[in-house]
């Protein structure tokens, strides 16, 4: 969970960087000071509710000068994620990005109708682990992150001071 949240936060961080790099004289927010900057965090931003006993990882705020963004809620442009539209709402509080909500997300591949109470057959199971082997190319779930960053960037553009 922590890693997934970190991955997503890195995407948000990249959006910050993209916005910031356009501002003259504004400080650039790098991935380094976002992930590692525990000291200047205010409140935890994105905290998963995990059911297991592991403790909830705390994702800290990027180091932002106060007042980078105006407080409020900003709805980003809808962005095409091929299977559907992604549209996010960015909530700014204390001059910083406090929350990102999905107003719209592709539904077509995601209907989670689960058939429960069925005994699983004896199929091989394993805990996943990182492989270091070289690959020619990668198969992963459709990259809708581009649409996410696009929509978030447009929301944050409205929030700029």
């Amino acid at each position, binding site marked *: 969970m922590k890693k997934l949240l970190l991955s997503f936060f890195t995407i948000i961080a990249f959006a910050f960087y993209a916005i910031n790099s356009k501002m003259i004289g504004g400080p650039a927010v790098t991935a380094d000071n976002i992930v590692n900057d525990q000291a200047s965090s205010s409140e935890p931003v994105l905290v*998963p509710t995990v059911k297991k006993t592991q403790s909830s990882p705390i994702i800290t705020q990027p180091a932002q000068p106060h007042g980078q963004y105006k407080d409020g809620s900003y709805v980003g442009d809808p962005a095409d994620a091929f299977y559907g539209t992604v549209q996010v709402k960015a909530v700014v509080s204390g001059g910083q990005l406090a929350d990102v909500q999905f107003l719209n997300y592709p539904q077509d*591949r995601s209907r989670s109708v689960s058939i429960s109470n069925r005994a699983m057959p004896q199929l091989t199971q394993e805990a996943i682990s990182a492989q270091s082997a070289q690959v020619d190319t990668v198969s*992963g779930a459709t*990259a809708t992150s581009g649409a996410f960053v696009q929509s978030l960037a447009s929301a944050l553009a409205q929030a700029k001071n």
Partner: protein
Amino acid sequence: MKETRTDIMGMPITVEIAEPFATENDLRSVFDYLGAVDARFSPFKTDSEVSRINRGELKGTDYSPEMKTVLKLAEETKEDTNGYFDILRPDGKMNPSGLVKGWAIFEAAENLRVAGFQNFYINAGGDIEARGMNYSGQPWRLGIENPFKVEETVRVVHLTDRGIATSGTARRGDHIYDPHDPKQKLSEIVSISVVGPNVYEADRFATAVFAMGRAGIEFLEQEPGLEGYMIDKDGMATMTSGFNEYTHD
């Protein structure tokens, strides 16, 4: 010869032809074809055939041959998946994207084959048609992405003349939510990768099987010609009994 573009179908598309006589034109022909498919089938382009159909502007008899083909394939897939795959949305509009992608990659691959190429892959947003061998003369080495850390690979499959498609929530926003809202919960399965005789078969089943939750891997086990690797929210993977055919060198 290899090229990646990110401006078609809203996803990264990579084509690699492992043959000395491949040219940029050969690569471009794949991108042009996929761009044309996108123009016809994207529900997010107002002048696409899909959008015009959804606005009621076209009679069935006026549908293009490609549209008729896709609609027929969609109907077959709906039957083959006991209704888990359905291009019709609750609002009555259709979105065939879940099938068009695999179909289009397969058609593009067939175009390359007809042009004389036997060794190549086309990877569109993680759905891959792999033909022949890579530059080392080995089956193409395709990594299955770690849904919790997308820059990592958790399994490698070695494919020749096969397709693989992965459905999942890995790159979605599902896991970003208000910690004070207890109604939010993680979906059971975060990703399922399907290997099939080609990417069309892999993709249409990956779409439906993901919607089945944990039972999806059982469905795959029963389907001849399909193998699967499913990852749940706790990072446990379950694979079909024939999956390891593809994991050896």
